[in-house]
């Protein structure tokens, strides 16, 4: 199904299956993310999209199958997950070898997310959007070949979410990691991704490239057609959605 067979992949999932207590969540999943490619993975709640991401991150092991992922891969979680007892800049370089975990490196990364003046703040003093930007800086500072985004905008307010989406689009275009964005927001997926996958009943049911010019905005006939296609795949039908407005 994938058209990226000729380019070097940033991540590959081969026949990945995962069961929790005998309940199967993923069934023989094949997914490829090319280098520099931005892939969005859509799915309803409980469809197993976060499970796939955690397997790619190496936090969880698949029950069957295997994944091929780069050594340097990072995650931005739905919540910031900063260590409350470390100042912002130390959170950014957490886990790096001591020699390279410098303040200068952290401040550079924080500058990219517009928070270099918060380097010495405690995480507890940040707003939700700021904390999530620190989490993004923490993920980008080690120049990952694979960036895993687990609904990173879901807990943000609508305005902050739009700004964060722009920031992520900008930074991914600049650093070109392979990206897997897990989300249930169809418009977010269409705005950000080069390719959208839909996960349904443990399998990839749709795998479509998004050939819209960048920078993208929500709306327009081509955008709407794609969005409706994905929504329909997720069981939300456009006619029903508009009539309820």
């Amino acid at each position, binding site marked *: 199904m994938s058209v990226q067979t000729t380019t070097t992949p940033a991540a590959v999932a081969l026949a990945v299956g995962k069961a929790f207590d005998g309940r199967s969540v993923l069934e023989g999943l094949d997914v490829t993310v090319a280098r520099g490619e931005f892939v969005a993975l859509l799915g309803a709640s409980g469809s197993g999209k976060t499970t796939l991401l955690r397997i790619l991150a*190496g936090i969880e092991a698949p029950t069957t199958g295997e994944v091929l992922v780069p050594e340097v891969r990072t*995650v931005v979680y739905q919540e910031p997950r900063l*260590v409350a007892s470390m100042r912002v800049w130390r959170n950014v370089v957490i886990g790096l070898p001591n020699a390279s975990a410098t303040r200068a490196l952290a401040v550079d990364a924080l500058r990219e997310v517009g928070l270099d003046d918060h380097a010495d703040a*405690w995480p507890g003093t940040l707003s939700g959007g700021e904390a999530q930007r620190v989490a993004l800086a923490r993920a980008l500072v080690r120049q990952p070949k694979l960036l895993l985004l687990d609904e990173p905008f879901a807990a943000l307010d609508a305005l902050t979410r739009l700004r964060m989406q722009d920031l992520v689009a900008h930074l991914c275009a600049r650093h070109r990691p392979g990206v897997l964005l897990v989300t249930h927001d169809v418009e977010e997926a269409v705005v950000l991704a080069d390719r959208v996958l839909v996960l349904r009943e443990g399998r990839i049911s749709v795998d479509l490239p998004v050939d819209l010019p960048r920078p993208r905005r929500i709306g327009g006939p081509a955008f709407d057609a794609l969005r409706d296609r994905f929504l329909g795949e997720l069981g939300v039908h456009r006619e029903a959605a508009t009539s309820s407005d």
Partner: protein
Amino acid sequence: MTQVAAPGVMTAPEPGSGTAPPDGLVRLGPDSAPARRRRFSFALRLVIPVAVFLLWWFLTGTHVIPATALSTPRATWDSFTYLYNRQDLVGDVGVSVRRAALGLALGAGVGTALGIIVGLYRLGEELLDAPMQMLRMVPYPALIFLFIIWFGVGETGKVLFIGLATLFPMYLNTSNGVRNVDRRVVEAARSFGLQGRRLVRQVVVPLAMPSILTGLRFAAGISVIALVFTESIGANQGIGYLVAQANSLDQIPVLVVCVIIYAILGIAADLLVRLLERYAMPWRRHSAVR
């Protein structure tokens, strides 16, 4: 200063409050309460101790409480100056503080280490938790005679006794705190490559610090209690020795002096831990409710 007007009733704007808010709205200004509270805070802390002192003065001065039960403030003060000038009160306090501090350091150190191991590792919990829970339930004063038989009446036995008594509050609070560290944060730190001793030192221990310091506060209190026990038997110096002496000679004023010294030691230990809290948890200074 906000005023909530009844619907339809105009309230006169307060001087200096600018224009009146539109209908149905109230103006909420900056809160003036914190500044006022801070100024009175110290005075408020003294209210009850001063009241107790006055009550003591009144009840003993009017002989409602006879001198055979409780000495007057005057007699207590005289007894204090006598102990201070004619006997080695400062030396006694010094010996006692040293015993309590050494015992506390020993018990708190071992208790924290065991708590971290048990909180962090399954094997540690399986091996250590049950024996610790059993030992914890043994009332430590019951062990004092055994300690004298094993270690004699010297300093070693006393310090070990206080160490044992302070071990358990430290252990319980630390293991509990480590167990309750946000697993999602630990998982995130692990996924960013932090592991082993660095993970413990940089993430687990700091995040468990509130519990660890609660344990230390308990342990500090218990160290003074254990001190009394261990100094009442087989000691020839220290405040506990003074208590035992005064008790056998029926010297009420000396007993009262010792009780006051214990109370002062208690509040000093508590202040020390509070200070440590500010130093050890700087991230809570900004986000704590108070």
